[in-house]
């Protein structure tokens, strides 16, 4: 599953920025529209982090909700899925938030 690649990317990114650090916690932002399942990510993270400076680190995952903006009527509205249709009938809609996949911060021991 791709959460494995995502978890590996998280571990690699942190290890590259802080090569000698022991990490006790990682704060991630996994948008509700990002296509990543947080539970699967936790599972994979535990596997890939072992034998690295992130072994045993806690994962704090915030899941920002989907938010879209309609370019026709200029309103913003909540989005549950990637079906981009505004109530005004326009499909000229783009995602403002909810598809992000970010490493916000880490706690270093």
């Amino acid at each position: 599953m791709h959460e494995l690649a995502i978890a590996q990317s998280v571990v690699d990114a942190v290890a590259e920025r802080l090569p000698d650090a022991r990490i006790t916690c990682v704060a991630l932002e996994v948008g509700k529209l990002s296509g990543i399942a947080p539970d699967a990510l936790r599972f994979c993270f535990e596997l890939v982090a072992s034998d690295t400076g992130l072994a045993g680190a806690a994962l704090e995952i915030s899941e920002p909700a989907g938010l879209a903006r309609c370019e026709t009527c200029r309103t913003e509205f909540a989005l549950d899925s990637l079906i981009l249709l505004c109530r005004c009938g326009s499909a000229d809609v783009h995602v403002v938030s909810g598809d992000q996949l970010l490493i916000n911060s880490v706690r270093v021991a």
Partner: protein
Amino acid sequence: MVSPADAVAGAGHTHDHGPAPGHAPDNDHAHGGRSPHDNDHAHHDGNPHVHAHEQDGHIVLLEQRVLAKNDLQAQRNRAWLSERRICVVNLMSAPGSGKTTLLERTIRELGTRLGLSVIEGDQETLLDAERIRATGCQVVQINTGAGCHLDAEMMERGLRELDPAAGSLVIVENVGNLVCPALFDLGETYRVVVTAVTEGADKPLKYPQMFRGADLVVLNKADLLPYLDVEAAHFAANVSLVNPGADMVTVSATRGDGMTAWYDRLAALVPGS
């Protein structure tokens, strides 16, 4: 990069909530307009402070996109390809939609005209590469092992090994998977999603991320439509729902129906073809 000292001492405030690391809120640093945290915790008004029950250690702000490394390699791939006027088509689908058959016919009928070469992605075996090689087309196989998608780094290795000619067209047949490949930019020029009619008309609704990212959707195995309770128009309507801008063609790779429309799209990618 924010140093650990800044994050703890004073450029805003850090706060802990339970076992989680805190992070400085608001805009004392650039983060592309998005808040780095969602607001399900209380902000204390006023003064910067560190909670009394502060855990050991210190916070380091990273604010890095998880896919930054892949995206950077994808951009490098894109630049390399652009310099050589090479177009790359990323061909994605569920397993068994007929991608390889579509490719075989395309190479037979169009290969020399567009200078086609192929990168094959599969978990295991060289079977697809062998089918392509049998057409006389240049091909490289990437085996991902446990991996479920190609990524930009694999793409770079594949391109190096394939060494496509300037001004040519490369088709990448991604690992059969409607979920994961959508997330990984390879540096491609054009994204194609192939769906067989046997998969049902509601596929685009069930896999919106994949279909949303498509430039072109190919509905394949159209020769089977008379035997199925599926309508091409219904499928097309669902594609439009998740991706209003998507182009679509309906083909039968085995019989040859509708293939001209597919060939026209490929030819349009290669100037002077």
